[in-house]
């Protein structure tokens, strides 16, 4: 989880809105900190399905 959090550092501030990058740091810090205390209920959280496979 720390590896996933640390990879937010790889987003270039010159290329994306700062408010988004700050928001990403904030929730990942919270996720890791809380997880270290109590573990996670879900072992995996997000996926990106090809848009064409998703019924609208």
């Amino acid at each position, binding site marked *: *989880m*720390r*590896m*996933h*959090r640390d*990879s*937010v550092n*790889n*987003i*270039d501030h010159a*290329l*994306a*809105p700062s*408010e*988004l*990058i700050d*928001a*990403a740091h*904030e*929730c*990942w810090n*919270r*996720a*890791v900190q*809380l*997880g*270290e*205390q*109590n*573990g*996670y*209920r*879900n*072992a*995996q*959280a*997000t*996926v*990106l*399905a*090809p*848009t064409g*496979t*998703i019924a*609208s």
Partner: protein
Amino acid sequence: MEGARGEKVAALIASGYSSDFNGDAYRTVSGQNANNSVRVTDRFIEAVMKDAVWETTTRTTGEVVERISARQLWREMAEAAWKCADPGLQFDDTINKWHTCKATDRIYASNPCSEFVFLDDTACNLASLNLLKFLREPTALPAGGPKAEALEARRGDSTSTPTKHACRIFFLAQEIAVDLASYPTQRIAERSHQFRPLGLGYANLGTLLMVEGLPYDSDAGRARAASLTAIMTGEAYALSRRWPSRRDRFRGTRSIARACSR
């Protein structure tokens, strides 16, 4: 569809069969209800970069079957994918490096579309948020076509990102659905309850980038996608730990919890 079959379809169409996707040319060719992917290792990619020889081996004994140019094999896979969209590629070392449950087992496979990449005999339900629904500004472009300045002005104030609140609501709904879903086998049911994998995600990234005036294949486009993906996943995991009692966490062992924190 695999290359040889794709070529057979092309030959049938050339000889007068309908090229309609539901026509006879496609109907007579088997194997179209499947996706085929190739798992490649870092070692293979390095061989491609160095233009080295690659050895194929038998699955059972590891005996060398063929020695071929890695770069040629790579080229053949790329051309086949260009012609007929198969094979897909999966990067085995990368997948297992970012795996959250290394202590349980490695990741061997995925679902056919490859978005769910997790332990054997697990399943997850999907929910995709449409990014365009989160645009703050109206999406209509200026009359007379998009002007560069208008797009530039828009870029700053229309950052469309699913709100953290929306991520939490959908993630919670999916969490509840784990216990309401039915699963194809008992083992998949057991492990899906044990690990409770979820598949929150988004759709319409390409449209979002176009609306925001960001080229699809650009560093800015990728940075935009990385930011919103990070927010969605970070918020989901933050909520995942929020369910109160200790017994509610996914029932992995201590070693799983340790591996997870890595």
